[in-house]
């Protein structure tokens, strides 16, 4: 994939969702949410606590069933009915509270990410014929590359749950990248990080963006979002209240109201 930087506006649309609604009992968690993420963009999804950002994420990635909405990924409609099908279609995600495979090594974690792009079954595993050996070697090679890419290659054989917090985040991103995603969806990657770790994360995300990947980002850290994102949608009470470039969004009266309305008092 070549980076298609241009103005960002002519680039093809990767993720297009429209009219998404989700209700939990009496709570309308999402109503009429629409997003249009273009190739090569870092797209921010922000909003006050409880605005429905993570719900929106879980709907996009198939963890929750939406009540309504159209979902298109790279021009093809997809149905977010099962997470593994969404991953297959090309959306990889990370989790707000890191969810690694704790007892596996860092390398194995990333190798699991290759599962969805590889084929070998029981016979290949037992007989280990040529095609199976080649596939396994390719999985290992790609996983090592990705560990190196996110900067933790030297921790490849370390058991994942003994990694530091920042390294666990990097590992989770490497694992997501291993699925060859069209869209990388990151749920509050900077949560719980100190200032140095946040800087490192920012560099990593810029690198991923520069390599032409498209990123959908939920983040609380306003500084990080404003500096990183090309476009932003602001959610409040499950509805999109503003959409635009960071500069536009910052000036939007509804956003100021949502964020500062309580604080101004």
């Amino acid at each position, binding site marked *: 994939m070549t980076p298609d930087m241009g103005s960002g506006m002519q680039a093809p649309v990767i993720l297009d969702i429209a009219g998404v609604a989700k209700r939990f009992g009496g709570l309308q968690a999402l109503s009429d949410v629409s997003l249009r993420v273009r190739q090569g963009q870092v797209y921010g999804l922000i909003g006050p606590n409880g605005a429905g950002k993570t719900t929106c994420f879980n709907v996009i990635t198939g963890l929750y069933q939406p009540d309504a909405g159209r979902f298109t990924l790279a021009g093809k409609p997809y149905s977010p009915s099962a997470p*593994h099908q*969404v991953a297959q279609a090309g959306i*990889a995600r990370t989790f707000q509270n890191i969810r690694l495979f704790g*007892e*596996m090594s860092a390398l194995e974690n990333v190798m699991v990410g*290759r599962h969805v792009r590889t084929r*070998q079954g*029981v016979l290949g595993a*037992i007989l280990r014929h040529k095609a199976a050996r080649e596939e396994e070697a390719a999985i290992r090679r790609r996983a090592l590359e990705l560990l190196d890419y996110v900067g933790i290659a030297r921790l490849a054989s370390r058991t994942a749950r003994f990694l530091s917090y920042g390294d666990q985040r990097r590992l989770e991103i490497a*694992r997501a990248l291993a699925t060859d995603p069209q869209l990388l969806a990151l749920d509050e990657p900077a949560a719980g990080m100190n200032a140095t770790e946040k800087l490192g994360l920012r560099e990593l995300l810029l690198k991923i963006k520069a390599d032409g990947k498209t990123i959908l980002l939920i983040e609380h850290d306003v500084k990080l979002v404003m500096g990183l994102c090309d476009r932003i949608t602001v959610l409040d009470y499950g509805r999109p209240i503003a959409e635009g470039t960071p500069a536009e969004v910052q000036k939007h009266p509804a956003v100021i109201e949502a964020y500062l309305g309580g604080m101004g008092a």
Partner: protein
Amino acid sequence: MFYFNYRRQPRKTVASLAALVIVLIAFPFIASQFGNSWVRIMDYALLYIMLALGLNIVVGFAGLLDLGYIAFYALGAYMTGLLASPQFAVVLQSFVDQYPALGAALVSFFGPEIAQNGIHLSVWLIVPLSALLAGVLGALLGAPTLKLRGDYLAVVTLGFGEIIRIFMTNLSGPVNITNGPQGINLIEPVRIAGVSLAGEAGSQSTVHIGGYAMPSVNAYYFLFLFLCVAIVFISFRLQHSRLGRAWVAIREDEIAAKAMGINTRNMKLLAFAMGASFGGVAGAMFASFQEFVSPESFTLMESIAVLAMVVLGGMGHIPGVILGGILLAALPEILRHGVEPAQQFLFGKILIEAEILRQLLYGLAMVLIMLFRPAGIWPAPRQEDRPDADIDEPARSTDVVAA
């Protein structure tokens, strides 16, 4: 003592393997000097190792707590009971008695030979068939449990295990299939290349291969050892494959596994099927070895014993599971043989009955293992951070700040 890591030290590994092979081959010849019962104990231990390795795929790799695993052992054993004994003739006869029309159709379908003598399949068919049957039933019984986890899964599988056993106990009427609580008798011993591993009639359980003679238990030992090695090999290959990693991923975090594109439903069914197929093979061998099966061999206690082998040995770690299997299968027998002479020697008389003391020591051993080695006797190795690792490594953040 033994060292197994071909990448790090190929020579030492090859030497260890060679030593292990010699020990395993020499064992029955040495042990049978002290009586065949020691080899017999080892035969049963090998069967338990096969079971434990099968359950290890379900519990150890995929993390699905299965308390009904012994059902697949029962299925393999009863399948052998039906297909390698006169029992099938009994089944057909009881159909003729109960439902003459259906019975006549079945008899004409199977022919007079089977109606007279039952079915007698060779071991070459019994082993794959038992694996297949148990595998299919493993997936079928697994299917309704896919949404369950932990305790709930354990209770449901426990129920399934009991259902199978109760079926075996009660399928003696209206048509007699399993002979009920009396079990199936006269199961054919394994016959390889015309040689019966139970020894020919009148040979006092001595097997003659060429000019060479050995006790029947030794012949079975080698057969079971061969099957065990095959199962260990398959387990290793599965573990270090895309499928094995997917299983462990499901065990570690099912939601993350799904989000990484793993079809957890299919992978769980595959784990149930693979695990069950090992159990089926072990069951078939058990039936041929004992030449008799009855429902009381397949109680919940047996399921728990196999689970204990997996957990005490080291869940998900194949060498640990093998060790657990040997220890828990052989320990009760060794205690059975050992506690009375030991008491005689120490006190000059028997203070506590062997059977009671044996249970006591067995329980104590389990408690001690869980206290001092909660991850099992021989758990999977993990590479941990040393507490001071961050200090003596160059600051990782430099590459980041510079950028």
